[in-house]
């Protein structure tokens, strides 16, 4: 179907390109049929990226290509994209069937189907069979969201763009809808760009994702790569719980490099030669009381019981540290350690 390329896309607001910069050299390739997520805190530029793909905003610089075709100057109505907004934006003066069928006023239904048949098929796809006569204000939030999805898919777009479509729903509904969206996406095999601020959601549903921060792409990769090998300090801290440290490189001891933090020496996997500062991160789950390397005395401050595990917030030498234990600690003082291989070195820039 379609692959999507963003080549060094920049977006600057304000006159003559002197205003605030919303996107800086965003370079992303979304492969045909892929479920690709843009994730980041609010204001990071993920929604702006989506809007430039849809054609609602023009990039100040760079190119957007659908299957190699440059899209500059192509208005949204001629891009063949389906968009679902956070507010759903159902047309309040049209019933469900009219909403879903709206795009078919401008494009023929695929495979020579009639409009009515296509609308009925789409409603069935999103489990809203027979609801065509309802008015939007008679629907629940989850139902509206599914109508919006059916409407976006009805003209068989080349590309599906979802802008935080779940964030107005409660947690349980969100999970079931998330499964439905991924099922439909893989059934149709449609290239999809999904925008969310929820990193856990991004990890759970994406084939690949891009973590964005301050208008820049920090890292692109599969969920496992992003989680296990964060490329920057921002990614390390934004995706999942993490402990990030920085220290002075003291030298090499066999297969390990030695790093000093406040006088304590920590063993890490071998660092490149010539580095004098090093940043690394250790996931809470990698810190255990049983480990015999890199022992750190921790003062417990709070414990949060999460069911299977307990999240412990504490301090080591005055630095914040997060642990994941199997039970609430009995004492306020405990010592944990981690194997050098469990530390991930973050590239310094």
């Amino acid at each position: 179907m379609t692959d999507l390329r963003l080549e060094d896309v920049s977006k600057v607001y304000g006159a003559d390109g002197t205003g605030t910069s919303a996107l800086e050299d965003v370079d992303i390739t979304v492969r045909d049929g892929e479920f690709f997520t843009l994730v980041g805190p609010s204001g990071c530029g993920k929604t702006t990226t989506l809007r430039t793909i849809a054609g609602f905003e023009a990039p100040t610089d760079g190119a957007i290509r659908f299957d190699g075709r440059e899209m500059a100057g192509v208005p949204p109505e001629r891009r063949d994209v389906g968009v679902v907004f956070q507010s759903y934006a159902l047309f309040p003066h049209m019933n469900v069937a009219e909403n879903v069928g709206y795009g078919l006023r401008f494009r023929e239904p695929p495979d020579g189907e009639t409009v009515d048949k296509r609308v009925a098929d789409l409603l069935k796809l999103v489990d809203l069979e027979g609801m065509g006569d309802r008015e939007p204000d008679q629907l629940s939030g989850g139902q509206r969201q599914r109508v919006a999805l059916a409407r976006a898919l009805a003209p068989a777009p080349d590309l599906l763009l979802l802008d935080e479509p779940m964030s107005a729903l409660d947690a349980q509904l969100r999970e079931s809808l998330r499964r439905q969206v991924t099922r439909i996406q893989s059934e149709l095999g449609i290239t999809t760009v999904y925008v969310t601020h929820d990193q856990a959601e991004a990890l759970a549903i994406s084939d690949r994702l891009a973590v964005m921060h301050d208008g820049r792409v920090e890292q692109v990769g599969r969920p496992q790569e992003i989680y296990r090998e964060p490329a920057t300090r921002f990614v390390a801290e934004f995706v999942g719980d993490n402990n990030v440290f920085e220290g002075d490189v003291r030298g090499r001891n066999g297969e390990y490099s030695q790093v000093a933090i406040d006088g304590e020496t920590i063993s890490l996997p071998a660092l490149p030669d010539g580095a004098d500062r090093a940043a690394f991160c250790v996931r809470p789950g990698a810190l255990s009381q049983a480990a015999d390397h890199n022992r750190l005395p921790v003062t417990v401050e709070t414990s949060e019981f999460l069911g299977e595990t307990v999240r412990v917030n504490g301090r080591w030498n005055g630095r914040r540290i997060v642990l994941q234990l199997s039970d609430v600690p009995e004492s306020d003082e405990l010592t944990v350690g981690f194997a050098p291989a469990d530390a991930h070195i973050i590239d310094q820039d």
Partner: protein
Amino acid sequence: MSRPNRSDRGARLRRRSAGVRRWLERRALVLTTLVTAGVLAVMLYLPVGVVFVEAVIDDGTATLAFFRAVLTDPFYVGVLADVFAEPLAVRAHLESLVGWLGAISVSVSIESPLPGVSLPIPWLALEVPPIRKGLFGFTAYQAALSTIASVALGLPAAYVLANYEFRGRRTLRSLTILPFVLPGIMVAVGFYAMFGRAGTLNQGLGMLGLGPIPFMEWNPLAIVIVAHAFYNAPLVARVTVAAWESVDARSVETARSLGASPRRAFRDVVVPQLLPAILTGALLTFIFTFMTFPIVLALGGLQLATVEVWIYDRVRRLAYSEAATLAVLETLLSLALTYAYLRYESAQSGLARAATAPSRTPLFPDLRTALSPRRLAIIGYGLVALVVFVGPLASLVVGSVTDGNGVTLAHYAFLLERQLEGASYQTLPWVAIRNSLLFGVATLAVAVPMGVVVSVVTVRAGRGGTIVDTLAMLPLAVSGVVFGIGLLQGLVFGVSLPGGWRFQVTGGVAIVAAHAVAAYPFVTRNVSPLLSTLDPALVESARALGASRYRALRDVELPLVASGIVAGAAFAFAISIGEFSSTVILASGSQTYTMPVAVERYLGRRSGPAIAMGTVLLVVTAASFVVVDRVGGRFER
């Protein structure tokens, strides 16, 4: 062989026409915007520009002599003439100001004002030495008095509407927009029918064996001011009620829990939130009454002339340069006032929507409460309001079917006879009615698309929209008479174009242009609030689904703001039906007179037919108001 050929050509034609349509659709918004801008340029900016040029050109050379003549003439500017004549003699001016202030005397004495009763009351007397106000000074003076009267009459209404629950409260609240659709000349005739020598008031007094009292001759200024209050007190009440209802009841409760008495909480929490609204209403009232025209013309005539009435008189005497100079001065003043109003309004735009609206107490829960002092005061106010607001309109209807001796249909019979037997140079009722309806419909056809386009452009254009908004709202700050002169000189007399061409618009077209320009801001005011609250994602969804910008407007935005468009259209129609100031100038000596103009022409000779004609106008206006009310029209932004 010819059949496939033809169908071939047909298909090609169809394809081409589909192509043309798509091209038009894609540019529809730009094209309609350009057309609107063109109409505005020709029908609004050109006429106003012509007036400005007229004021500074004498025999083809630029001059400020006209301004100098007006500004140094005590007839126009009163005592300020000396100041304008010698602006540098600051000392002399200050001395005369001090002298004047020194002549103000304040005295306190004990007097017994009631004859026959020796009830001593301390009497505060303020004596101000007479001052020559001039035409502008008098205009401002009557506007200030009208503003005070409007606020005094409007605030109690706001208090009752915001704090008490009673049957008909909502209807009463929505009736406060009525003045905007009532033709000024009709209201003037209503006041005439009430306060005139043979008016309903004197008829009532006659039944009691009193009168007749010549109210109109006695103090015409007072009648004019009450008529202005009739117009503007509802406006003051409306903006104040809106502010009062947006006061969060929880904030008052918070003040109470922190130790404030009910009175203190009202003063500290409620009053500061009401004051901006009251000031807004007062400023608007001052602007409107400064530019007043039909009411003063009909009730006061030249002896009470305001700037506007005097300009009209100059035009009738063909003194165009003088009229244009006065028009420019008046427009500059009203623009300054409007600018002050807009600045002030935007400065306090952070009016919060109440989280919890204040609760209302029943007005008359039982007889005992109904007799409490506060309730009795409200009843008293209600009676005054009844006289001021219902009196004139009721008098209009009553006056149309009575004369000094009882019920009669003579006034309507006169209208009918005039229609059937009148000469063509006379004012025929049916011609007036037909013209009014025709111009009303034509105004709709022009003003509604214009208003909608201005709305779309301003709402969607972001910061640039404010500039467009300001430019497009100019008609609200230019008085009808000034605009009428501009149209007369710019379009009716025509302007020369390069190459020997002449641009000229006459008769009905010029009047429709005047009405459309006066009416479209009301369409915009009704559509814009709805349009700006629409989720932009609605249009974007439609675009992503394949709709062009124009199709998205047609399929999504317009249906969702339909009620605003209908309300705006009803306003536009009512404005056109009631428009007097421009029409009376443009219709002079032609067959394009409308109902309000006919009312004024009859009024000059016999009051009975004028009152009957005014009643017909009332019926037509009431019909359009019902439409406004049904679809939830609004004047507020």
